[in-house]
């Protein structure tokens, strides 16, 4: 288990580095797809199966296809080497380094985060059925399995029902907005 964490983290970070160093935008997009797949593997290791699958379907699938589609539509070529502003480059690099150092300092003093990874099966301490779950999901909980999608759905449709509907409206508004933005002439 531990080895998998390091393997997928390394995949994610090295492909993430590939996104920002490659000159060709198509290579950047493909690196980002790989990086997101590594991230989805980390989610699944954290027992967040639903979020992991959504990450693959929405990010690595839909969003990155949209990116590649736009790159090819605009026919973007690899950036040619040209004289860049070295002061701006150094400033950005220094800012990133300072952020990294600060983050390491904070995390090395974060005692509450020094908790080990316990498999959730070992700690399942439910006595009675959770309300709002179907029989099959509760039976799974009794067998110490995690009905992840049922639990996420229960949270979304009870506790976060209103935000969920607002997000639906947001998607509709963005769809209409994209159509308006893409029109050549408004009549």
């Amino acid at each position, binding site marked *: 288990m531990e080895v998998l964490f390091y393997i997928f983290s390394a995949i994610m970070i090295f492909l*993430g580095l590939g996104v920002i160093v490659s000159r060709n935008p198509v290579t950047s997009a493909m690196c980002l797809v790989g990086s997101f797949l590594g991230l989805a593997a980390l989610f699944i290791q954290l027992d*967040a199966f639903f979020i992991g699958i959504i990450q693959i379907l929405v990010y690595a699938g839909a*969003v990155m296809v949209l990116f590649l589609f736009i790159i090819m539509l605009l026919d973007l070529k690899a*950036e040619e080497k040209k004289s860049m502003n070295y002061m701006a480059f150094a*400033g950005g*690099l220094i800012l990133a380094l300072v952020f990294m150092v600060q983050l390491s300092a904070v995390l090395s003093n974060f005692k509450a985060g020094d908790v080990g990874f316990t498999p959730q099966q070992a700690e399942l301490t439910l006595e009675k059925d959770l309300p709002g779950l179907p029989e099959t999901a509760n039976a799974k909980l009794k067998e110490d399995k995690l009905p992840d999608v049922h*639990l996420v759905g229960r949270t979304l449709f009870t506790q976060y029902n209103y935000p969920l509907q607002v*997000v639906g409206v947001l*998607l509709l508004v963005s769809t209409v907005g*994209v159509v308006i933005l893409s029109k050549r002439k408004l009549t």
Partner: protein
Amino acid sequence: MVTLNHYLFVSGVLFTLGLTGVMLRRSLIVIFMSLEMMLSAANLSLVAFSRFNLVDGLPNYNGQAFVFFIITVAAAEVAVGLAIIVALFRARQTTNVDDITSMKY
């Protein structure tokens, strides 16, 4: 042993990569991809917090609901942002941020 701090550190590294990309790259599309990376890094730390904060032996699903909303908003944001980039390319024939300076000063 893999602890919460490991996940937070990996998430921080991914966020830093995104930040570096936004500041150093000059192509709008790559800047936009780096933004997506930063959003995903935030998602990773939220899911890690949710998993390590067990309630009755179950992960805290409030964090995962939040991640669900972030992913939805990010998808909407990508669609609108790319439409803006296409409109900009139509007007200026470039996606290089060095060439788009009409709002400077």
